[in-house]
């Protein structure tokens, strides 16, 4: 039954989602959908509501109006089913610096109920894929920012999620590390059919074969494949389209 849902239902459906912190309205009637293999860039300036949206999708706190369905499971009603299908890379570094890379990954595997033997196989594979096999026994604090991000991506995939959320994952990284992450995530979408929602305020990260969701002051202003959004705004580039949509200059 759960497997049927994974095949049939879209990875993510957000409908009429609104959220406020006291008087401050963070999200207003946000709606969009993600399909298998989609790589959607959630583009917005700082303060647009991206992190709030991610916090609601990952149920760090509950939404009060609208709905969030992950493979058909409403996150508020069936959090375990929904969260088991999600891999998340947060904006802030979340590795435990006092533990080794392997220990961090085993901890994550345990939080998802994986047996240690199976976790060992998966950890070996994921850490190989991000090119850090030689650092697996070292403390996380000894890694560079880019290497930590790679480990966090490997960690997010240990429990074999069907959808990956990345919140400003390239902030503070050098060009080579950014490119590695972009290429790695592209590969995951193409070869494994992973749906990816990537929040960013860096317009350079939005390439032409991705989908884009433009979020501004808590509202979705445009959504669709990048070429469509550019065409609809009679713009020459996604940067120009974004500037026209928001009336502000992008980074």
């Amino acid at each position, binding site marked *: 039954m759960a497997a049927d849902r994974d095949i049939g239902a879209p990875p993510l459906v957000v409908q009429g989602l609104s959220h406020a*912190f*006291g008087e401050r309205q*963070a999200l207003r009637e946000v709606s969009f959908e993600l399909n298998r293999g989609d790589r959607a860039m959630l583009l917005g300036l*700082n*303060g*647009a*509501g*991206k*992190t*709030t949206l*991610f*916090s609601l999708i*990952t*149920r*760090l*706190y*509950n939404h009060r109006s609208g709905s969030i369905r992950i493979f058909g499971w409403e996150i508020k009603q069936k*959090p*375990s*089913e*929904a*969260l*088991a299908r*999600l891999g*998340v890379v*947060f*904006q*802030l*570094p*979340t*590795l*435990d610096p*006092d*533990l080794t890379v392997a*220990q961090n990954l*085993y*901890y*994550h*595997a*345990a*939080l*998802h*109920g*994986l*047996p240690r033997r199976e976790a060992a196989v998966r950890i070996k594979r994921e850490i190989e894929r991000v090119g850090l096999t030689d650092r697996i026994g070292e403390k996380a604090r000894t890694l560079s920012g880019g290497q930590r991000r790679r480990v966090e991506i490997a960690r997010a995939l240990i429990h074999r999620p069907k959808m990956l959320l990345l919140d400003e994952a390239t902030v503070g990284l050098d060009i080579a590390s950014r490119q590695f992450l972009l290429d790695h995530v592209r590969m995951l979408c193409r070869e494994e059919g992973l749906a990816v929602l990537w929040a960013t305020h860096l317009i350079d990260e939005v390439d032409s074969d991705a989908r884009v969701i433009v979020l501004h002051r808590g509202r979705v202003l445009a959504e669709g494949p990048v070429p469509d959004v550019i065409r609809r705004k009679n713009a020459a580039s996604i940067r120009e389209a974004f500037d026209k949509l928001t009336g502000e200059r992008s980074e």
Partner: protein
Amino acid sequence: MRPVHYYRCMQGIVWREGLRFLNQRGRFVAALVRPLVWLVIFAAGFRFVLGVSIIPPYQTYIPYEEYIAPGLIGMIQLFQAMQSTLSMVWDREMGSMRTLLVSPLPRWYLLVSKMVATVAVAVLQSYVFLGIAYFWGVQPPPIGYLTVFPALILSGMMLSALGLFISSAIRQLENFAGVMNFVIFPMFFASSALYPLWTVREANQKLYYICMVNPFTHAVELIRFALYEQFNGLACAVVVGALIVFMALAILGYDPGRGLIVRRGGGPE
């Protein structure tokens, strides 16, 4: 999620807590040095000032060191619980708590697992302390080392649940100093850890009542009686009751629909 997933999750959280504890050797040493300083220096200085008459569970006059040993075990557990509180607040500030909170198991279960992890470390520390204290003349009956085990678990759980609740209520790491002043010190000193409550009653009746409603007093008494193969029903009831209340408050504090994180938002944008 099947029961085995729950088991592996708890095992993982306990394992991580243990690793962190072992990795931070300074923390291990500090956790032992603090009560040993009290036992070796404070007790030596005060043994002739603070007289201990024959009170249950003791059947004869005892040296002051023997009297304060259960209180110092309570101190170990209290500091371990607050250490865990501090690391929860730190993890929340730094963002690493999100890894825990987005795991698919229910949040109440994650908190219970965190509590078990804290208790496991605290019990280990308590036994190491008892081992060292043996050579300083604190020698309860051999069976006492076994009968104290459930008391250590129960009191550790209660104090850890208190720590979880506090961590859900503290807004910033800077506020932790307030916890030291308003929670740890009053709890420790307004209890039977360092002096029998009859001495407090003689000095100040109101303070005696404060000591009597302090759950830490009952945690210490539970440990004290268990260490001498006796059961203190009142202490046990208060500790269990406080455990239920603190845990319920902690679960409410971390509830995705009600807790502090909901009111103040999820982090930087």
